[in-house]
């Protein structure tokens, strides 16, 4: 891992969840698995570095699962303040080269390559920064670490209708 570059990350990230779910809960990703974590090995907190990125993820979830976005509402949109020391930036081509994957392979619907990377980086860094598979104009921060010193929810808003997405303002 010596050739890999890790950098700190501080700022606001965005995440949507069903209304009843705790914003920083990684239990669901642990139970079901996600793009960067194989199920039952470890959980991750999937966030976007922008509001538009979170919305793109929501729209993709609806599209891929064959539902209208309205059917997935209501949802809670959480703004989360993160302050991490060590993030593996997979939007950096030099880091991507280390794992031997092309960018397109990390954006596909087959999660095998990303879950392999996620497993390799588990216990090595705090989070993975990646391009969003929903819209590569945006980036996602996929966190291993969810402790109060590094991650805190600063605002949560209920999204009841699709226009609500456009009424959200950053908490700071």
């Amino acid at each position, binding site marked *: 891992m010596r050739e890999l570059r890790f950098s700190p990350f501080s700022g606001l990230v965005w995440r949507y969840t069903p209304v009843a779910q705790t914003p920083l809960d990684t239990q669901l990703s642990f139970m079901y698995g996600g793009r960067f974590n194989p*199920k039952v090995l470890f959980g991750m907190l999937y966030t976007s570095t922008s509001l538009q990125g979170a919305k793109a993820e929501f729209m993709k979830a609806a599209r*891929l699962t064959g539902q209208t976005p309205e059917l997935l509402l209501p949802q809670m949109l959480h703004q989360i303040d993160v302050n991490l020391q060590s993030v593996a930036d997979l939007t950096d081509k030099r880091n991507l080269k280390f794992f031997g994957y092309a960018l397109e392979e990390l954006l596909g619907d087959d999660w095998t390559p990303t879950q392999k990377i996620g497993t390799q980086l588990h216990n090595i860094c705090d989070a993975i920064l990646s391009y969003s598979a929903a819209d590569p104009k945006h980036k996602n921060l996929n966190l291993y670490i969810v402790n109060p010193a590094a991650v805190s929810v600063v605002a949560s808003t209920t999204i009841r209708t699709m226009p609500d997405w456009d009424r959200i303002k950053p908490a700071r």
Partner: protein
Amino acid sequence: MQNHHDKLIQRLRELGFSDSHIGALTYSSERTVQNWRRRHNAPNPLVVQQLARVIEIVEDLRKLINPVAFTEWFFQSNQFLGKSPYKAIIDGNYRRMQELMGVLAGGTFA
């Protein structure tokens, strides 16, 4: 008194599955399912296990999908699975089904 498999089959029928669907989900024929229901014979333990597994998946999915749209959604192909959830269960694509549930539950991004 109802056997365990009677209860499982009854639950699947309450969930909207026909004998033909139950047959496909357990790799059996519609006639075989009818025979189980009429108690002419009983499913083997592996089939009972599969019935329980199908119910568990369907019950989990029903918590995540709007109930009004569930049946149509369940039998319709979606891009995430590349097939319908119904077909994915028949084909044994359980890992991808779990990942789908994670996306639906809002636990992960797709």
